[in-house]
């Protein structure tokens, strides 16, 4: 058996390595714990010495302030709506393009796929100024459109679905569908979409999380606080002097919950999906 050799010989105490890894893990987890702790302390008691390390009793009071004084709930719904819209659109267009790249032989296929991947290296800020002018001209400011339309056939998603469909969708099933009289579009709807579900789940989760966290684009294109997303509202709250700190901490903590819940369940798939390009590159 050619088992993997230990990377560390016995010279490095193994117990020490395990302790170090665990300590780093705790260090990484602590800020998450801390924000949830602070969210349960009443506004005037968030900042105290010594700093709070255990939960307080201000949860319901903070929640009340949060829902009353700031458009927290509406921005929560905005974030959710934008993230879901973007996810559905991405799944459709990226799976469609991935299907073409993975399962058809056509002229310039390689070059076109290479171009799609190369666009990932273009820095996002390069087009933001004229893009903003365009959005103003289109009348798209304070609408969801600038956040969901330009990226709905995103290069990353196309790459991911191409990878997935090339290995995960047997040609025989497509041939069988074709014999049953399905056209190319029929194959996409009836065969590819149902069978690409595992890959689409990964892309969907990654798209959702990315959209849920997106800040800069919402800051620029959704300046109206009642129409904008959760991160923008939190940032606005954060830079206000008169804010209720307990409510801000609770609002921040609650904004993390959906993302953390998804990640804890699907961490393996999310990590492999996100790093797919980097690891194979």
């Amino acid at each position: 058996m050619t088992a993997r050799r230990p990377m560390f010989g016995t010279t490095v105490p193994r117990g020490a390595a395990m302790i170090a890894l665990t300590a780093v893990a705790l260090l990484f987890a602590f800020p998450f714990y801390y924000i949830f702790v602070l969210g349960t302390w009443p506004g005037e008691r968030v900042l105290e010495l010594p700093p709070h390390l255990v939960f307080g009793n201000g949860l319901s009071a903070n929640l009340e302030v949060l829902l009353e004084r700031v458009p927290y709930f509406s921005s929560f719904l905005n974030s959710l709506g934008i993230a879901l819209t973007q996810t559905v659109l991405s799944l459709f267009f990226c799976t469609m393009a991935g299907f073409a790249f993975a399962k058809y032989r056509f002229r310039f296929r390689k070059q076109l796929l290479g171009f799609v991947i190369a666009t990932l290296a273009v820095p996002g800020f390069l087009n933001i100024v004229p893009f903003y002018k365009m959005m103003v001209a289109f009348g798209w400011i304070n609408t969801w459109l600038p956040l969901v339309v330009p990226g709905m056939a995103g290069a990353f998603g196309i790459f991911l679905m191409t990878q997935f469909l090339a290995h995960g969708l047997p040609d025989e099933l497509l041939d069988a569908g074709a014999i049953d009289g399905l056209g190319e579009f029929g194959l996409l709807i009836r065969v590819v979409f149902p069978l690409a579900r595992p890959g689409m789940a990964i892309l969907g989760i990654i798209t959702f999380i990315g959209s849920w966290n997106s800040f800069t684009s919402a800051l620029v294109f959704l300046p109206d606080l009642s129409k904008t997303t959760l991160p923008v509202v939190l940032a606005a709250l954060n830079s206000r002097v008169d804010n209720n700190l307990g409510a801000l901490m609770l609002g921040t903590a609650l904004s993390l919950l959906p993302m953390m819940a998804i990640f804890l369940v699907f961490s393996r798939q999310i990590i492999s999906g996100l790093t797919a390009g980097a690891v194979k590159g």
Partner: protein
Amino acid sequence: MRVSRGKGRMPYLFIAPFFALFAVFGVFPIGYSVLMSLFNWKMSGPVEFIGLGNYVNVLTVDPFFLSAVLNTLVLLLTGSLLQHFIALPLAIVVNSRFVKGKEFFKTAYFLPYITSTVAVAIIFANLFDTNYGLFNWALGAFGIEPVAWLADPVGIKVALSAVLNWKYVGWNMVIYLAALQSIPAELYEAVEMDGAGTIRKHLAITLPHLMPVVFFAVSLSIIGGMQIFEEPFVLTGGYENMGGEGNSGLTAAFYLMFTAFKAGRLGKASAIAWIIFVVILLLNRVNRLATDRMPGGGD
């Protein structure tokens, strides 16, 4: 792979949305920003052709841009690049055979990467608070006077670097871990028979094999690091504060956003965008040259 039937148009139709969207929302505005950078172009009002005036202004007269680039380069070193010296050893340890629960460690280290930057900045602003923050409280236990992290030019950089390291180490660790797992075990057996110790083993086998991945991961760090905006924006309190005390948290991308969306000088902001782009290209060139000089990097 299937041969396209029909008239062979379908695959082109399937991939058309990407190219249409990229043309409209990518190529067009990027080209347009070259044009805008040559004009005195305000948020409203008439525009005036000034040639390379914006570039000259930004590079010679502007009181903020060069220091913003310097801030960004410092953060690139202490925030985005330093962490590769943490991520790689971490990956090597996690990859050891005796380590149980690899998936757990991957999950724990990766979680910050997918966390909203705004939430991260709000949490760390608390931890770094001068009077009530956990860090100063902990330092106080050793008799160290409170540090005004967020109101001190060096302090802001320390805080921002801490955020960047915390947020992205897991990402790099996972990339290195995957690369480590693709190195054939036989290679290690060969040098072990020569009696090589742990350190020599990694210098002789691991590092040369990982060089292409290191180049790639560092390239991503450079591209990302030169665009750092959200972390300093939230941590230093938005456009109004312009990066806090002495503008020491003002990064190049932050200044670009400020110039465009706070000062409303769109032409100048476009020029800034192109200058940052050139800096990224130059840094990646340096990265290439440096990697080529390392063992295993030239092939």
